[in-house]
């Protein structure tokens, strides 16, 4: 896992009122301000990455990959669109790449230790019906249901849930029409509800 050395140098209070686009312009002109963007976007990006991967370590790595990619491609940002739009476009591509890579890896890897199968929680639930264990079970179910969805639909659901954006904004970020967003969201929610039938009374 990488650490951005710039984080120690920047003054977070000073750049609070700066727009993302002007920060990018200043980074391009040579100032070391990428840490500001990182601070602004890291929590949301991590949440997206966690939703996409379902595992903490992978999510952290994916977050770093996204930021690294953003930094590498920063010189291609022309300022025609909002920085957030551009950022989520890269994040989506990185997430899809990651999912593709993971799927291929799971197909080839046959070693059971590498598959990271979760511990059988239900047995322990019977032993001691604890609230935390129940919560863990619910979380596990939720995660596996989310992971069984298509990556594009999953990303859309997470974007809507985490960011709380309107259809227009999501459409702008993913470069599609609001109608497409609506229909994909609807389909994703229906699928998710069908997969979570077992949790009906618990949530």
């Amino acid at each position, binding site marked *: *896992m*990488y*650490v*951005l*050395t*710039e*984080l120690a140098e920047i003054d977070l209070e000073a750049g609070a009122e700066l727009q993302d686009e002007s920060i990018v312009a200043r*980074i*391009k*002109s*040579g100032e*070391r301000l*990428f840490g500001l963007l990182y601070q602004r976007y*890291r*929590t949301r990006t*991590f*949440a997206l990455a*966690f*939703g996409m991967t379902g595992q*903490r370590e992978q999510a*952290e790595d994916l*977050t*770093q990959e996204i930021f*690294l990619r953003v*930094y590498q491609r*920063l*010189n*291609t940002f022309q300022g025609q669109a909002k920085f957030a739009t551009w950022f989520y476009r890269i994040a989506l591509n990185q997430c899809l790449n990651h999912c593709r890579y993971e799927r291929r890896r799971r197909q080839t890897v046959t070693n059971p230790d590498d598959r990271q199968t979760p511990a059988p929680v239900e047995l322990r639930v019977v032993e001691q019906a604890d609230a935390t264990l129940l919560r863990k079970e*619910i*979380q596990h179910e*939720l*995660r596996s*249901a*989310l992971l069984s969805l298509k990556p594009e639909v999953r990303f859309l*659901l*997470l974007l*809507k*849930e*985490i960011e709380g954006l*309107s*259809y227009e904004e999501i459409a702008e970020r993913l470069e599609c029409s609001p109608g497409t967003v*609506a*229909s994909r*969201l*609807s389909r*994703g*929610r*229906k699928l*998710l*509800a*069908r997969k*979570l039938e077992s*949790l*009906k009374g618990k*949530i």
Partner: protein
Amino acid sequence: MLQKGFDQFAKLSCRWRYGRLLSAYLDHEVDAQVEGVIAGHLHECARCRVEFEQLRFANRALVEFEIPPMRNPQSGGQVFQLPAITAVSARKKLYSQRIAVPVPLAAGVAIALVGATLFAMSRNQQPPIQSTVLLPAPSFTDIKVVEVPVERVVIRTVYSKRPGSRRVREAGKDKQLLLTPPDSKADIARNATRKVEWSDSTLKDFRPAASANLRVVKEHEK
């Protein structure tokens, strides 16, 4: 019976009409008017209500989905030094905006120009036609009509004199091809009575006119 069928159709229809909008209704993304209509419909239709509940359940499940806090990245790991960005960006920008499109375009145009020039030069290298210089520019009115009767069909070929074309230079060849004298004895016998001018001198500067209106005339038996 009819009522039952109508109800079924209505259900199918309402699912088609409202099913796509329920998700947007949940997110308050529909117009106020449509929202009222959907709310009214949900009050009436049990089936749509079930579907709406499914969507709401999925939304609730997503809210329940816990995302662990991101660990402090400085708690361990390699230190990554970001490379300088300006030098790379200037070169890449120059390439993407100034070089990538115009230079190949200019190269293509230059190659096309050179090719066209070479082609034109190769055409011009042909030796000038001497006959055109010597001929006193005959007009198009010099036309000679030759009749070649074959059996009972007379083919009239119009020969005209036109300077400057390659075919005038090769008039001798054309004439040879077109006016091969009859060689077999039978042909000679058949054509003995017919007056055909075969002499080379008469057709020397003439060639068959491509644009002349050639007509096939059937000769009646006399």
